[in-house]
């Protein structure tokens, strides 16, 4: 079974290549659907496949840039990408990312990188999960109240509306973002992107996990446009991140390309699946993914403190994260298949009706 393994020329480790392909496919689906790179799944996944953490981060970011480019191309055709917003955010993201990447290189030198990355992940995932579920619960409560009083609930009147407060920041220039349908100070996306870029650089991720909810909750971008714009952002910042990590000698290009083959198929499926799911549905499943990821990171972290339980907890984290990738990508594929089937059926019915009228 040697043919199932390929030697990574730089890291010098033997890697099970179908694992890379499947990992790429899974995170391609999830990334295209939720609007993020999926590093939070790939980095531990690569580590599980036998990559040293330092190479896992660089390789992940390199593959993520290519995959997000594919998803952006697809979302752009649906009108889900606000390029003006994306371009404005790039400056902040790159500045913040470089600061974070310099910090992580230094942490690696003193030997705390694994611990720091996992603690950072955990805090961040907890905050994001709380935010998403609080939003969904608030939205449902408002809907119940609206039903009780007999008033119609407009789609836009969702749960958490922090962006309304941030839009009161009227520092010029005030910019209109057409695709997103919002008007705010240019400094709002710059500040938000600098902060999210800094976090992304420190945690070794593309930033989509943080930026997607930030676009929705802090800037007020509709969910589908947040997904597409974030992917555009991940593609650009991911390429910059890949250059940064590669120049520091931490990227395995061969692995990134193998993953990209699987991710190219997944990215198409995930992006097209957003056609068939409402914004709050995307947010809810995003929250589920974040919780699953958080639990797996917590298991790894606890295992690092206990030599007795380490093996068991690491295995549990592996099972959980792979299970999460399988379950989420399975759910998205199902929605894609159902949606496409219904659309094709309706298309055939329309065509049949036109023919019968002739």
């Amino acid at each position, binding site marked *: 079974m040697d043919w199932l393994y390929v*030697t990574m*020329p*730089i890291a*010098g480790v033997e890697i099970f290549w179908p694992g890379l392909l499947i990992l790429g496919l899974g995170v391609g689906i999830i990334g295209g659907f939720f609007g993020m790179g999926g590093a939070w799944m790939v980095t531990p996944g690569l580590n599980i496949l036998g990559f040293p953490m*330092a190479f896992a981060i660089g390789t992940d970011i*390199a*593959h993520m*840039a*290519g995959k997000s*480019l*594919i998803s952006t*191309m*697809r979302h752009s*055709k*649906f*009108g*889900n990408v606000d390029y003006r917003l994306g371009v404005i955010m790039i400056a902040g993201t790159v500045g913040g990312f470089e600061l974070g990447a310099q910090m992580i290189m*230094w*942490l*690696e*030198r*003193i030997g705390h990188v694994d611990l*720091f990355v996992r*603690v*950072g992940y955990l*805090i*961040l995932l907890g*905050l994001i999960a709380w935010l998403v579920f609080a939003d969904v619960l608030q939205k449902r409560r408002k809907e119940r109240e609206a039903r009780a009083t007999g008033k119609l609930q407009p*789609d*836009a009147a969702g749960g958490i509306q922090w962006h309304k407060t941030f839009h009161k920041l009227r520092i010029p220039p005030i910019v209109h973002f057409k695709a997103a349908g919002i008007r705010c100070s240019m400094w709002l996306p710059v500040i938000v992107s600098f902060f999210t870029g800094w*976090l992304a650089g420190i945690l070794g991720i593309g930033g989509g996990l943080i930026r997607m909810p930030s676009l929705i909750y802090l800037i007020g971008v*509709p*969910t*589908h446009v947040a997904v597409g714009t974030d992917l555009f952002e991940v593609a650009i910042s991911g*390429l910059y991140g*890949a*250059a940064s990590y*590669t*120049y*520091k*000698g*931490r990227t395995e*290009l061969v692995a*990134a*390309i193998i993953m*990209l*083959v699987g991710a*190219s198929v997944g*990215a*198409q499926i995930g992006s*097209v699946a*957003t*056609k068939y*799911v*409402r*914004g*709050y549905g995307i947010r809810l499943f995003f929250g589920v993914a974040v919780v699953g990821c958080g639990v797996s990171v917590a298991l790894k972290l606890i295992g690092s403190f206990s030599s007795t339980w380490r093996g068991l907890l690491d295995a549990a984290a592996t099972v959980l994260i792979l299970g999460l990738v399988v379950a989420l990508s399975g759910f998205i594929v199902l929605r894609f298949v159902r949606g496409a089937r219904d*659309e*094709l059926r309706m*298309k055939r019915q329309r065509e049949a009706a036109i023919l019968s009228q002739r």
Partner: protein
Amino acid sequence: MLGSHRFLIRRAALALAAFPYQLLAAAGKAEPIVFVADSRRYHGWQAWFTNLYNDSLLMFTVVTVVTIPVVGVILGLLTDFLMARIGINLRSRTVAEH
């Protein structure tokens, strides 16, 4: 209830922001880690690739940064073509909401 959430978020954000600086203060003199790929094990393109990595990280970075988007666009166009074969509308989405 909302106040306690805000307090928790503020504390977590402060902890996250302060953590690297605490470690920075404890760093002392640390030497940078240098990775070297073992090019003696390989032949052909793999030998060229590992030598490129060892000789010039700048050129290795240029090769990586050019290869990734080029491969991405080629694979994207290919999968886009295959997706269009299904027959669904790939130009607009029907669901529109915040």
